[in-house]
């Protein structure tokens, strides 16, 4: 076969060009550790990577939402536990005071103690979370939900609820929304349970505490008549309903916290899965790539060596 001088060099250049470009691709894979950098490298893997990336970003946001809600839920849990203790204390006072033996002096002391408990309960009712949002105000988080009216003696005579009965919720997983907020009061008969007052449970912490304080004061003034004992015993029954209602709220909060915990673990696992899937789609297999690079380099070297040898040879070398 006739081979022209030009065709040899042309072919030689074409071949080492191919090897060079193959070598560059492999070298850049080794250098970056990535087998996929541009959409054209592997369009379907790119599609998957972009979708995984979106999922990973959502998951990271869910984790951040979970952390935020957990903080609020912990604050709510502390407040609810304090409230339970407080209502329990009031109940104990009512039990002891509901005894006909109790002296007027003791009844006055009890009345003063209940007065303190009311102030304490006001503090709990107006609890704020780390973002200075009131957690027992429903969605009216910017305004203190409970305001008290006092008489000339400084005793609270009534407490008004300024919040509403709805709560704001956030997603903690795709399609799963939860809320760490609770309305302070819900007498509508539907929706999330009110912490301090709820018509369904017959609970109304402030009204019942105020009634107890007033009954204790009356009893102290009247010398603890049987009518007073009856009234105080009735207050005790009401406070028991309040405590039951708070316990319900505490267990709701516990369920929420465990839901958050589970969601957080799931999100964590998902994040790990997304990371490893992303890595599978994009990271080069170094062992294979390096071997291929070695092969290409060997071919390149052989091609250069043989080419250089053949190119030097021509009839002219031997004509003199």
């Amino acid at each position, binding site marked *: 076969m*006739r*081979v*022209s*001088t*030009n*065709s040899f060099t*042309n*072919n030689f250049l074409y071949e080492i060009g191919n090897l060079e470009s193959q070598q560059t691709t492999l070298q850049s894979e080794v250098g*970056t*550790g*990535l087998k*996929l*950098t*541009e*959409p*054209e*490298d*592997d*369009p*379907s893997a*790119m*599609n998957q*990577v*972009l*979708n995984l*990336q*979106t999922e*990973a*970003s*959502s998951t*990271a*946001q869910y984790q*951040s*939402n979970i952390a*935020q809600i957990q903080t609020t839920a912990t604050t709510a849990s502390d407040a609810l536990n304090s409230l339970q203790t407080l209502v329990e204390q009031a109940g104990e006072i009512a039990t002891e005071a509901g005894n006909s033996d109790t002296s007027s002096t003791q009844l006055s002391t009890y009345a003063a103690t209940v007065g303190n408990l009311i102030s304490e309960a006001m503090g709990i009712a107006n609890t704020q979370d780390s*973002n200075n*949002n009131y957690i027992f*105000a*429903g*969605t*009216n*988080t*910017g305004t203190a939900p409970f305001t008290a009216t006092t008489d000339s003696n400084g005793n609270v005579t009534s407490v008004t609820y300024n919040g*509403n009965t*709805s709560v*704001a*919720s*956030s*997603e903690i997983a*795709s*399609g799963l*929304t939860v809320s760490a*907020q609770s309305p302070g009061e819900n007498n509508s008969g539907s929706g999330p349970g009110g912490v301090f007052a709820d018509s369904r449970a017959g609970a109304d912490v402030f009204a019942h505490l105020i009634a107890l304080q007033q009954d204790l004061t009356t009893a102290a003034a009247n010398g603890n008549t049987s009518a007073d004992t009856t009234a105080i015993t009735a207050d005790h029954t009401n406070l028991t309903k309040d405590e039951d209602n708070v316990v319900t709220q505490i267990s709701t909060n516990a369920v929420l916290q465990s839901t958050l915990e589970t969601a957080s673990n799931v999100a964590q696992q998902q994040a790990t899965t997304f990371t490893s899937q*992303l*890595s599978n789609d*994009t*990271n080069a297999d170094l062992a294979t790539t390096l071997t291929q690079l070695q092969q290409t380099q060997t071919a390149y070297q052989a091609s250069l060596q043989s080419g250089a040898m053949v190119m030097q040879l*021509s*009839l002219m070398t031997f*004509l003199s």
Partner: protein
Amino acid sequence: MISLFGTLDMGARSLGVQQEEMTVSGQNLANVNNSAYAEEQLEVSESTPDESSIGDEGTGVQITGITEIRDPFLDTQIQGEASTTGSLTAQQTNLQNAEAYLDEQISSTTSSNTPDSANGLAADLSSMFAAFQGLTTDPSNLSLRTTATNAAQTVATQFTTVSGQLTNIQNGLNTSIKNDVATANQDLTTIASLNQQIVEAQNSGGSAVQLVDQREQTLESLAGVANFTTSAQANGAVNVSIGGITMVSGINVTDGLQAYDPGTGNLMVEDTNSSAPITLTGGSIAGEITARDGALASLQSGLNTLASQLITNVNSIYSTGYDLNGNTGQDFFTGTDASNIAVNSTVLSDPSSFQASSEAGDAGNDSIALSLAKLGNQAIAGLGNQTFSSNYAQTVSDLGTSISTVNDNLSASQAVSQMLTTQRANTSGVSLDGEMTNLIEYQKAYEASAELITTVNEMLQTVVNMKTS
């Protein structure tokens, strides 16, 4: 019987022919690296013999012409492949530009150490929906509101930037089409003028091989711009037709190409004489039109659909919401598509006017923010029931597929070109070894002819000396 002078004359002619052989070899050696060059050969034949009583007596050698070794079939194939390569190269360059502007490159330089595409619209969309999610945890928080509007503004800016750059590429393609049309017309003029010189050279009995080489080079350059068909004429001219319309007929340019705007702002090609649209199937003009009206147009329209669906869906939720001051009814996004999407300037400058609440005066209400956040995972009817992110990922991977197809076709076309070029080089190309051998042959023949002249000269000397002695 031929006289001694006749023999001397024969030797002199032989010297001339060997010398001409050397010249042709020299020409071949000089063009050893010229890829369009076809090896030339000196055609020689025995000169007319003298009839004599003893039979025909040879009178030596004569030159009948210089020819070149060309395979017209290979030339046509190389022209065709040049058109394919030209078209694919134009597509590859422009689509890769668009790919770069999308900015969806995977890198592992981010802090997370997981390789991802952190700069493109995919990441921006995720950040925006994440910011809406974040806002639900504290809807009245001004800094969370600002984060959400800024993330949305980043999405809008990325849309308009990419859209603007795609428009630039399309404008650039229109300019390239105009330039390529001018180049093609220039080549047609050159071919007609070379036809004329070749016809003239052949009519006057001269050799036109260099002109044919030049014409072949011009035809191959034209093939890179627009595909055509040729038909060789008996007088040596080549007629050229583009899209079935004769552009060069013999020595005349009978028609030309021109770019025209069919009303879309995107240039197409027609012939100059009758303004008949020409559909090119190869060459850079065809590649430019294919890239512009194919992958780039669908990328552009994909982004426009995505942006307009984002605007409509976000606004229809957002506009029913209330801001911290009890105002309602504003849109979140302004604009209609990827070229002009922007976040409402009111909410950008004042985060308290973000309408996150579904009730007037209810600062902690996050219903609207939550609906916006959930929109990120919703199948959107206007996007073929894909989510915003998956629709965009599809658009990106569609472009990737287009480029990867062009890449594959281009490397196949380059391999075919290479094969054809090698075939032509082996047929028409110069072989150094062959020419060296020829040189030795011609040198020896020249020496032999010179020896003949010396010998005849000595014989003539002898004849002259016969008288004096």
